[in-house]
């Protein structure tokens, strides 16, 4: 009874097959083009609103396949993408700023499959269409900002502690503090030890000077914080853009991947993701002469700015409120039909604004728009990207009355600009500027085509292999092909269970895995033939064939696995998808080639008492 599997082995093959079948099943169900509406506020959407949306869609005469309201989110499934776009446009107009309307592809997996955690593979952007961005956080800028902050803090601390100083300035990587008198130095050093642990202290030969530098540990923390903070901001911004199932992930030390499935308007997406725009409110300095400042002698407490027309204007150094104190912003028109941003401040900001406006009625206040602009210049024949902080006074208005929490700002160029600015203010500012270093956009038609191409390659290839295997190895060829089919099933099931992202390279990986996995069966079949030629009985030939081939199968698969793992660890994006499929495919193929095909062979031949001939 060499060719007989114990019950547990047969059951194992059967159970694995059943489980694989169930978990691969969701991939057969398609996806519905749908529109998803959710609240941008903390409070969730209420039932009444959902009913309102439902009737609005029906009133527009669009047939809805299904309408779901769950967890404060509305999902309207539609029959085609034209309807989807129509409904999305309709709802975007109707719902206003408090709701995001996003296009989505909702899987049509039946509830019983979803209940056991069986979901379809997630389609990559090259298959469903959408845009992929790789953003690089400008770490130098983050560190520089921190230096500036320390610079100001030290000055403030010196003043508070009444230690007289001549200058505090950033110079060649150091914050150089020059005191008025050398005998104040111990007091300053103890202040540093108490409040500025994150700075390395160097004492240069000059007795009245102390040089400070951010410690390496602190620098690392600053960088980590910059990436984390930027990811939060980007997430908020993406939510504001209205994208269903966005992916926002850190990659490496200073990069962030943002994937927006279904997004077509990449220009706006790029504007929103990459911008560092924020606002500051300052009082206008009316006491000093602007011309003097333009000539290079600005007064101590003020700074020179330029407005949109390029006219110089002096503003107080002290900021009333900054963008971080804004809790909400929306765009619209003011009474005179100009584009405006309506702003709400948090408690601290509101109190400050209230106090200031009360004391300064009748005086002008300015709104400063701050943004980092990227320029590329040629320096010594090399491209150098240069980021410049652009500060522009967008409006100056006289304080008419006391206001604190809510107010409006005008002076923007267009309603579009007002809309973008309000979005950016709501989502928060990026703490460090980002560059988009990679973009990949795939249109929906190409995505659909790519799915077809991937499936065609697999299907036609498989048919050709099956045809040849059955002709060449007859019954054993059929067994091999069944095993190969189960291998694909297993592979798809594992990928679905892992919720891996399927891409076109991934589909190529499946095809290649099929092409390579057949090797194991060829090895076994050839071995069996050889043993038969050497005069073994059919039963013994099957047994020895499988036994002898096994070591070779393990050896040859291990080398491919090594290549797959290296690709997975070092590859990026699409290559990783290919490598993942390759690695999993090798593992599943070992099971299917050895266990599944053996079970089939045993089932066909193992029970025959007297075995004369094999169909091989």
């Amino acid at each position, binding site marked *: 009874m060499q060719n007989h599997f114990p019950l547990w082995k047969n059951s194992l093959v059967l159970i694995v097959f059943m489980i694989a079948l169930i978990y691969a099943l969701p991939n057969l169900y398609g996806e519905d083009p749908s529109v998803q509406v959710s609240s941008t506020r903390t409070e969730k959407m209420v039932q009444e609103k959902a009913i309102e949306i439902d009737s609005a869609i029906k009133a527009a005469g669009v047939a809805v396949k299904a309408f779901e309201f769950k967890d404060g989110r509305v999902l309207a499934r539609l029959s085609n993408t034209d309807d989807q776009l129509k409904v999305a446009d309709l709802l975007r107009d109707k719902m206003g700023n408090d709701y995001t309307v996003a296009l989505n592809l909702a899987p049509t997996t039946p509830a019983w499959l979803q209940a056991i955690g069986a979901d379809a593979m997630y389609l990559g952007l090259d298959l469903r269409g959408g845009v992929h961005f*790789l953003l*690089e956080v400008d770490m130098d800028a983050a560190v520089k900002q921190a230096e500036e902050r320390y610079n100001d803090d030290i000055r403030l601390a010196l003043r508070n502690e009444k230690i007289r100083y001549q200058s505090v300035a950033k110079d060649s990587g150091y914050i150089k503090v020059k005191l008025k008198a050398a005998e104040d130095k111990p007091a300053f050093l103890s202040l540093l030890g108490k409040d500025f642990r994150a700075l390395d202290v160097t004492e240069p030969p000059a007795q009245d000077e102390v040089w400070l530098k951010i410690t390496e540990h602190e620098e690392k923390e600053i960088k980590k914080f910059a990436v984390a903070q930027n990811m939060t901001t980007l997430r908020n911004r993406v939510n504001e853009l209205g994208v269903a199932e966005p992916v926002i992930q850190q990659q490496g030390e200073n990069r962030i991947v943002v994937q927006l499935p279904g997004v*077509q308007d*990449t*220009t706006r997406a*790029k504007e929103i993701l*990459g911008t560092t725009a924020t606002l500051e409110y300052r009082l206008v300095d009316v006491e000093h002469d602007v011309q003097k400042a333009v000539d290079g002698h600005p007064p101590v407490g003020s700074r020179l700015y330029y407005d949109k027309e390029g006219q110089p204007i002096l503003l107080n150094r002290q900021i009333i409120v900054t963008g971080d104190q804004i809790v909400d912003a929306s765009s619209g028109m003011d009474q005179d039909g100009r584009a405006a941003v309506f702003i709400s401040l948090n408690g601290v900001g509101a109190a400050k604004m209230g106090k200031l406006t009360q004391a300064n009625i009748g005086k002008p206040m300015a709104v400063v728009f701050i943004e980092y602009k990227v320029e*590329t210049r040629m320096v010594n024949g090399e*491209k150098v990207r240069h980021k410049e902080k652009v500060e522009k006074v967008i409006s100056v208005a006289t304080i008419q009355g006391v206001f604190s929490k809510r107010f409006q700002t005008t002076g923007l160029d267009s309603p579009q600009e007002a809309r973008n600015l309000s979005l950016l203010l709501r989502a928060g500012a990026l703490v460090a500027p980002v*560059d*988009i*270093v*990679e*973009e990949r*956009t*795939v*249109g929906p*038609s*190409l995505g659909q085509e790519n799915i077809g*191409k991937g499936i*065609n*390659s*697999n299907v*036609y*290839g*498989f048919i*050709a*292999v099956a045809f*040849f295997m059955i002709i*060449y190895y*007859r019954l054993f060829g059929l067994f091999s092909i069944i095993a190969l089919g189960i291998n694909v099933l297993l592979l798809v099931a594992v990928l679905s269970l892992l919720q891996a992202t399927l891409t*076109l*390279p991934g589909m*190529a990986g499946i*095809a*290649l895995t*099929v*092409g390579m996995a*057949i*090797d194991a069966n060829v*090895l076994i079949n*050839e071995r069996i033939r050889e043993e038969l030629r050497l005069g073994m009985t059919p039963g013994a030939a099957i047994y020895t064939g499988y036994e002898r081939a096994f070591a070779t199968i393990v*050896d*040859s*698969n291990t*080398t*491919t696995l*090594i*290549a*797959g793992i*290296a*690709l997975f*660890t*070092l*590859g*990026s994006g*699409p290559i990783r998808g*290919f*490598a993942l499929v*390759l690695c999993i495919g090798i593992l599943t193929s070992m099971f299917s080639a050895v266990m599944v095909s053996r079970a089939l062979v045993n089932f066909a031949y193992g029970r025959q008492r007297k075995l004369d001939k094999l169909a091989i």
Partner: protein
Amino acid sequence: MELFKIKHDIPFMRYGRITTTISLLTFILAILALSLKGLNFGLDFTGGIQIEVGYNQPANIEAVRKVLEDQKISEFSVQNFGSVKEVLIRVPMKPETNDIQLSGVILAKLKEQDAGVVLRSVEFVGPQVGQELFESGGLALLLVAAGIMSYLAIRFEWRFALAGIIANMHDIVIILGMFAFFQWEFTLSVLAGVLAILGYSVNESVVVFDRIRENFHKMRKASIPEMIDNAITTTMSRTVITHFMTQMMVLAMFFFGGEALHNFALALTIGIVFGIYSSVLVASPIVLWLGVSRKDLMSVKKESAEIDNLP
């Protein structure tokens, strides 16, 4: 059906000199192509912008060219891609093109010109990304080679490891040489294909080596070249059939997978064809030449047996 009914072992090792000469020649040619022509690196490595658009009617290439000229882009290429209705625009990385908004501007202008234009894909790769891909690609190649070598060294013996890796590096260089000679575009997916081939092609050598080892036990009276000849002859059927099967899947990708998988399949095809040749006719002569003997493999076996028996 059976295609390979070979009665006597084919004396492959006797032709060792010829086969080594052939592979040495192709190898040198490949190196020449690589050094003289160089690889035609794709966007992934060079950085730049690549825009693919589709029209309802055969595209007017000249009109598209004009749009790019109006944007004051100094260097670009416009060509049909796949069909006459599809156009591929490439702009290499230049200071003025390192602008993430440029693709949007070009698309808007194309839309003005013909409202029926459909965006199929846009790719922008910044200069810093390309450089890194380059480095990680090279690193992956080294890592795979080192991993496979150490596996072969543990599983067989250092001579087999060395022979296996030389044979496969020979394949890789030939793939790269072909890509350089014909100036086919070398993209990220081609690199993935090359690395996959590195793993796959070693299979061949492994199968033959496995047989050689088996023969060391079985064919006690035969000489070493005879044993190697026997190993190659007996595994020949499997080698050809397996490669044929894999090649069928690759051909399916080549014909049905579209432009995206075209060069990937091409790299695999070259790898598969030369994989057969090199694993049989390059790796084995090297093993022989390195002077493998019965003792080498037997002692490995014995040592491991002893370790197993330790309490």
